[in-house]
């Protein structure tokens, strides 16, 4: 048992978090092994295993993975907002050019 290898148990979480964290840990070159399992399907907990190459501690790798997921979420959120706005503008111009003038808000160009 060293600081470079750890199993984290996340209470009240499932594959949603387990798989997302596992993916981000694997994307870190300082992580030698990462995996997760749900010990029992009727208990809401998930075990995440992290072993690093020895450059960083397992906890630090875990923290990086979580921060990376948060940065992904932030970027997806902002990009989605912009895309919704863009879509609205596109529809507005489509409706202006609609001579019949009966185009609904959701009508595609």
């Amino acid at each position, binding site marked *: 048992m060293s600081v470079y290898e750890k199993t984290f148990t*996340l209470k009240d*979480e*499932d*594959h*949603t*978090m387990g*798989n*997302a964290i*596992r*993916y*981000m840990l*694997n*994307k*870190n*070159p300082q*992580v030698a092994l990462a995996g997760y399992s749900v010990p029992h399907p009727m208990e809401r907990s998930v075990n995440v295993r992290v072993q690093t190459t020895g450059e960083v501690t397992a*906890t630090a790798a*875990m*923290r990086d993975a*979580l*921060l*990376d*997921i*948060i*940065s*992904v*979420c*932030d*970027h*997806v*959120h902002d*990009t*989605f*907002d912009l*895309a*919704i706005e*863009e*879509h*609205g503008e596109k529809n507005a111009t489509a409706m202006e050019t609609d001579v019949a003038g009966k185009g*609904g*808000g*959701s009508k*595609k160009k």
Partner: protein
Amino acid sequence: MPPKRAAAKKPPAGPPKGSAASAKKDPLDEIAATIQKQKAFVTCASDENKHVNEHAYSGAYAALGIDSAFTAEKFRDEFKLEVTHLDDEKVEFEMQGLSPAIANAFRRILIAEVPTMAIEKVFMVNNTSVIQDEVFAHRLGLIPIRADPRLFDLRGEGDTPTEKNTIVFKMCVKCTREKTTDGTKGALINDKVYTDSLVWLPNGSELPPDEETKFTQFSCDQGEYLKKRNKESKELGEKEYFNRNGKDPNVISTVHDDILLVKMVAGQEIELEAHCTKGDGKEHAKWSPVGTTWYRMVPQVTFPSGPLTGEDADVFMRECADFDDAHACYERVGSDRRVVAKNERGCEFCVERVRALSGEPGWEEKVQLLKKKDHFIFTVESTGQMPPELIFKEAVNVLASKCQSVLSAL
């Protein structure tokens, strides 16, 4: 185990097909191109899907000079999102450059972990209809309630029901007959009970409290509370989502007023109070904000050994394109009448035909159905409680806040 070892010693695989024709090509380049294709696409053969895995490992494909490590900058450069359809109930958009691990997390959260309001407790005062109390209560639970869940608190086991965590509806209907003068039977009144008979009680429960239970303890009118909260969020620069279609965000109702709840005959009556609480889909599907939500990988029809001509083109058009006059994914152009994909993605009617044809002898190199591993068409269908685009944004926030709570516990 000598026989097994002998089996493993196969003769070295010959050069990839077609390499004789282009002898000048470096075989290593061809292998690299093949691996690149396997990395980016699932090949949908007639009998199985090939190369379905995503290799998340940061050192994967290092020999090709690809750095698979995650960096936020690289992600921002590669991520693309485009909305293709948006209305009050459904949003469809395409996401590119995202791992299925994250996309699936969004999907799972959309279904099970974005909170909404739903009827949780039903107090039956009187029910002489044919539907049993518990069956009717379950039925009431599934009705979508139009209320912004972000303005309400979760109600724990011992918490007092207040205007901040509970919405109360009452229902009081009796089926009667119209009176007639000529002795014939009059028409039934209230023989069908719809959701519009649920009346919102902004001042909380009207049931008389007994020694043990005070049904609710509202400190103010719920409409006033909502007005205050909506004003606050407006000042914070948040958009008011519930003002769409001219609906007052400070008034709570069911999403639909025409859902048939129960049928009665003359003399039967129902009197009850229904209390809504905040919850999420992992406890019960009635709290799920979506009818359903799904994503699919973008399909692509390709001709790996070049455009089809001659007899091949005839066969392809007969098998995959000419089943309907209106079908226009492929066309024949030029003097050699070669086949060109007008719509590379194909359509739901032709992609499975392409997949079947690619399994015929000699066809696997001529036509292939591929699916891009990191390009998703995402669809969110709302039940009407929240606008679909808001549900997705809430789901993204939920994932971030779950990570945040793990972070703070590390």
